[in-house]
């Protein structure tokens, strides 16, 4: 498997804004290599903005995002796309596009001006549809698939990019429990192959269970960062979401579990 070398991604004191409105200020973050990082926090805390900033979708007003130590906005876009893949939240596709068509787009950063589809491309394509378990759906149009199948197809596209870094914006937001677990386990498997992954996750419990590293955000700043078992506490939950809870450890996996979640008295 020609999984490319590793690559590092970091934010150095970045300020992100939508038009004039500053969403997040002075964020610094380094994604731990070959681990899964979960970015959590309440609605509107800037977690998706941070992810999009890391993926160079938004240009920071200040500071810089560093890919292998170099400013990501100064690198050729194609070179970046060979190192960093993104699964955005809003992923509409042209009508009638099949899963195979979509996954082939993932090879685009590796293709030259006039170069044809290579053996290397075919291999990456096959691996991606295997990994995301969409081989059986390859010829189906995306608009005929269920939400979970469609999400797996998009993940397959990102996997076909064969990047050492993978960013996912709420990869399980529209999925039922079964499909959520499927996607999270796929993410774990990919990180097991050496990919560095960052994802925005809404559900704190899933973040605890599937992430190695957690970044907790509130009002555009990072308030806590570290392994879930070390940083998740009733106090953190109180600060993030304004609710009270008790904390126990999952007897099966040892990851933190929130129980008895309630509004503040």
């Amino acid at each position: 498997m020609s999984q490319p070398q590793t690559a590092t991604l970091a934010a150095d004191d970045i300020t992100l804004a939508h038009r004039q409105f500053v969403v997040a200020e002075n964020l610094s973050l380094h994604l731990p290599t070959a681990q899964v990082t979960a970015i959590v926090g309440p609605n509107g805390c800037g977690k998706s903005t941070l992810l999009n900033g890391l993926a160079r979708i938004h240009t920071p007003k200040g500071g810089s995002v560093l890919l292998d130590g170099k400013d990501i906005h100064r690198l050729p876009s194609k070179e970046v796309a060979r190192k960093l893949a993104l699964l955005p939240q809003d992923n509409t596709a042209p009508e009638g596009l099949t899963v195979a068509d979509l996954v082939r787009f993932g090879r685009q950063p590796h293709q030259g001006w006039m170069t044809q589809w290579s053996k290397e491309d075919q291999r990456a394509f096959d691996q991606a549809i295997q990994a995301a378990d969409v081989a059986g759906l390859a010829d189906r149009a995306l608009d005929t698939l269920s939400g979970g199948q469609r999400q797996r197809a998009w993940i397959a596209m990102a996997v076909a990019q064969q990047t050492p870094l993978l960013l996912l914006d709420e990869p399980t937001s529209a999925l039922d429990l079964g499909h959520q677990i499927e996607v999270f386990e796929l993410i774990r498997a990919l990180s097991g192959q050496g990919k560095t992954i960052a994802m925005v996750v809404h559900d704190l419990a899933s973040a605890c269970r599937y992430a190695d590293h957690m970044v907790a955000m509130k009002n555009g700043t990072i308030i806590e960062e570290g392994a879930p078992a070390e940083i998740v506490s009733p106090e953190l939950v109180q600060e993030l979401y304004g609710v009270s809870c008790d904390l126990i450890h999952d007897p099966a996996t040892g990851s933190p579990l929130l129980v008895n979640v309630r509004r503040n008295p």
Partner: protein
Amino acid sequence: MPDKRNALVNTALLGLLVLATIISLATGTVQVSLFDTLRALAGNADPITDFVINELRLSRVIAGLLSGAALAMAGCLMQTLARNRLATPGIIGIDNAATAFAVASVVGVGLSLAPSAMALAGAAAATAIAFGLAGANGTRGYRFIVAGIGIGAIAGAVTQVMLSRVAIDAANAAYPWTVGSLNARSGQSVLVLGMGLAAGYLVLMSLSRALNTLQFTDAVAIALGTRLKATRIIGLGLSVMLTGLAVSVCGPVGLIALLAPELARALCRPGKVPLTAAALAGASFMLIADLLGRTLFAPLEIPVGIITAIVGSPYLLWILLRPSPRSLT
């Protein structure tokens, strides 16, 4: 990835275009057999046939072919950039503005520029204004289209005012432009269009992968390594150039830009911007519409722009009224 379906579609459309070209050449007041037409093209027909085909008709057919292809490609491109099927240069006022400028040069508003240059200037001006009025969303979103419609209306009115203020001979000379016709072409404009089309096509082919990614959201396009700003600027520039040059030859036959890409999109595989197929379809449409205009009520000639409007308008209504309008492609 070998793409059999699109290659097949392009071959079929090319066949249609060749057929339309030969029939267009053969048909007219003097009817020439298809065989004699081909002989004349090969250069060994009798002098009279040779004159009718190569001197009288060929230049008109070439003008129609090139302008149809250019309008269709410009439309396909603009629709992709705006991610909206309605966003063709004709609808967002670029045709009308190019026409207004071209008419100005014909009726002699003091500027003695060639129609090509004037039409280009008009097209560029309209786009720049629409772009400015659209605000931060650029070509995406309805503001661009609505602003363009307004500019098109103003440009149309300006054309009418100019025609009503000049001597009747000058107005007559400029009139074909206002409805779209292959009668008013100048050899020079056709030549400039041919060169622009060839150059534009080459640039677009080199950009085709990047253009394909514009069918997704911006985030996906960027993630796939597309240089979004550069691709948009080049695409918009080419769309404006092709429209301006085509209008300087045939006037605002805008609906070609709506119909041809639609046919191309229906035939080709989804996920690719069908520029070649659209160009071939547009060239065929223009020739067929011109042929109908010349023959239906002969010896009376109906301008090609009116034929495409009669065929195209119901289609435009259908796009606007169909039950679940989905975004482009």
